[in-house]
């Protein structure tokens, strides 16, 4: 309780405490840098795609011409003026095509990322913490193996081994994508009206949700099964990528002063790991999670291509690239860059917000 005497002598005002000012300043700087990074990516794309094509047509432009062309491409990218798609069965604007394809990939990611995180978090913590070669060495070897096995090979083998036997229960052969195969539908009188050409579903575009909305329980069960199997393949490969980074983080955490101090006071190893190290390593884990998202996308794209997810973004990407068409790549990479940079920004801020060191400083 404050006494009258204390009230008469106010506290010195030399260091006013503004708890969130450092965080806000950091957040503003990060938000401001995002458009600059996006512009840089677009510049790299422009230099790699547009400039060589002018040389190929023997019509190199002046510096001002290139500058104007770059400005126009930036405006086009940001306004969604991405041109007309002429790929697979589509003759539509690219924005519409992408809108068709994104939900299926999001459905897969929503299953794959939690599965990967549920495996990667405890495995990385335990392997990084344990100094016993009996645990650490096999874990390192297995994850290196996981990283070296191309995911499309794993996906193809899983598809061949698991799908063709397991999904036989659903009479769903051959097995493709996140909805039952065309033969499955044809055996039951054809496709329902809510499934469009190239396996795009309506109204949401998420196959599982749309099946549930239309009370197509068997379709939903098959979609869920297929999603889980694909998500597991994605998770296997992604855990290997995540583990290498995360293990070294836990290694360095285990040597921190507060951990060593707690250990010397007799705190149990289990408590040290799950209550102290896990907490302080969480922000770094989140950052690794954000920084490895481009690698995650590659993994998911390859799995989508291996499992022939016809309505998936990865399938579309592989189809575009192998058809040799360059035009769709620029908006595609722009979208990916936007996604990755935004994701990195959110995770970066989240990591900083939950960092115990930052919280203590506030």
């Amino acid at each position: 309780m404050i006494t009258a005497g204390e009230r008469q002598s106010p506290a010195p005002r030399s260091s006013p405490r503004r708890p969130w000012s450092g965080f806000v300043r950091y957040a503003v700087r990060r938000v401001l840098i995002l458009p600059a990074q996006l512009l840089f990516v677009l510049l790299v794309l422009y230099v790699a795609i547009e400039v060589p094509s002018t040389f190929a047509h023997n019509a190199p432009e002046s510096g001002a011409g290139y500058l104007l062309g770059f400005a126009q491409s930036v405006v086009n990218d940001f306004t969604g003026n991405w041109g007309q798609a002429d790929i697979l069965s589509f003759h539509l604007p690219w924005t519409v095509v992408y809108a068709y394809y994104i939900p299926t990939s999001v459905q897969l990611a929503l299953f794959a990322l939690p599965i990967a995180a549920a495996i990667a978090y405890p495995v990385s913590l335990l392997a990084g913490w344990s100094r016993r070669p009996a645990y650490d060495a096999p874990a390192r070897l297995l994850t290196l193996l996981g990283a070296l096995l191309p995911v499309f090979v794993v996906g193809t083998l899983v598809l061949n081994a698991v799908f063709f036997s397991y999904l036989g229960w659903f009479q769903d052969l051959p097995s493709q994508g996140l909805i039952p195969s065309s033969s499955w539908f044809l055996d039951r009188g054809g496709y329902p009206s809510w499934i469009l050409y190239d396996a795009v579903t309506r109204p949401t575009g998420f196959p599982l949700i749309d099946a549930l909305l239309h009370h197509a329980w068997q379709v939903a069960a098959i979609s869920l099964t297929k999603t889980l199997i694909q998500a597991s393949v994605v998770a296997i490969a992604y855990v290997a990528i995540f583990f290498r980074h995360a293990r070294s983080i836990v290694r360095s955490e285990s040597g921190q002063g507060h951990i060593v101090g707690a250990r010397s006071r007799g705190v149990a190893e289990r408590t040290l790991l799950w209550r102290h190290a896990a907490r302080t390593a969480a922000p770094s884990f989140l950052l690794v999670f954000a920084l490895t998202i481009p690698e995650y996308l590659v993994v998911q794209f390859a799995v989508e291509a291996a499992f022939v997810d016809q309505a998936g973004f990865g399938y579309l990407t592989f189809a575009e690239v192998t058809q040799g068409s360059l035009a769709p790549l620029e908006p595609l990479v722009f979208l990916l860059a936007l996604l990755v940079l935004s994701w990195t920004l959110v995770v970066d801020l989240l990591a900083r917000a939950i960092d115990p060191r930052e919280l203590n400083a506030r």
Partner: protein
Amino acid sequence: MSREPTPPDQGEPGAPSRPGLRERWGRRPPGVGFWVGSALLAVYLAAALSALFVFRTSPSALPRNLAWVPPYAPLGPSLNHPFGVLPGFGVDLFQALWQATPWDLALVAGILAIDAGMGCLLGAVAGFNEGGLLDGIITFVGDSFAVIPAFLFVVIVFAGLTAVAAGSVGLPLFVVVFGLILWPTTARTVRERARAVAHQPFVEAARASGASPGRILLRHILPNSLGPVLAQLPIDIAPIFFVLAAFPWYYNCQAPGGPPASPLGGGSYLVPSLPPFSPLPSASFPEWGYLLGFGTCEGVSQPGSFDYWWMYVFPLLAIVVFGIAVGLVCDGLERWRVGDR
């Protein structure tokens, strides 16, 4: 001239003389894994050197034997063909992988050299210059590069260059492009370590004793920031073979508009073809990733069947065993460096 303090990794501070390489090697042997990895790498190196001699007449083209091409039944592993036959190519798989070894070793060595060289140098400069202009530029460029998935970046750059060169731009450029794509991850990890090292007492002492920034960087920061690179290099092998294998696999097997995919034994077969923007100079080029991509496509052509397992298992083993060998050597070097056994 004042004597600079010695960093911890290079001997105890104040010690009369720094232990030599041989002495340190004897004091902290790198472990069994290192020797196993080294032995495996020696086998690969021997295979590469012998391949240069054996296939010297035509090192970059797989010799095709039409007697092994379907409709003849695919030949599995036997005494005559230890790894079996890849029917679409019409080649003995053992011979094809052997012939590919020098190309792949050179490819990986070149890419990792650029990756590690640029990553270490730029990462160390950024970490040492934390908060400065150089740090800002390197971090900004690295972070911006890192958002583009490697396989798309390779395709984009190759597509552009193919348009200018009006033909294949080849493996040397692939090495440079891939090295440039991989450096940001390495630089980021080195930067984090360099930041920590830059605040160590021995660096402060070196600075106080009048050592120039360049000397501090090269003598103290860089050698003590190399740990993360040794962990990163084996992982960086994976995307190289992924890119080399994934596109031939997809193009030959899955792509709408790609070459027709016909099952084996059905009287027709896959003719090896390269996707657009491929770094390989020809469709008969010996390369592990290409053989893996094509073998996966051809070997898993029968639903639910693993009858043609050798077509993808042996190329896969060539890549995985090589990656594990590099991983074991790097882990051993890291343990030896920090004395953590």
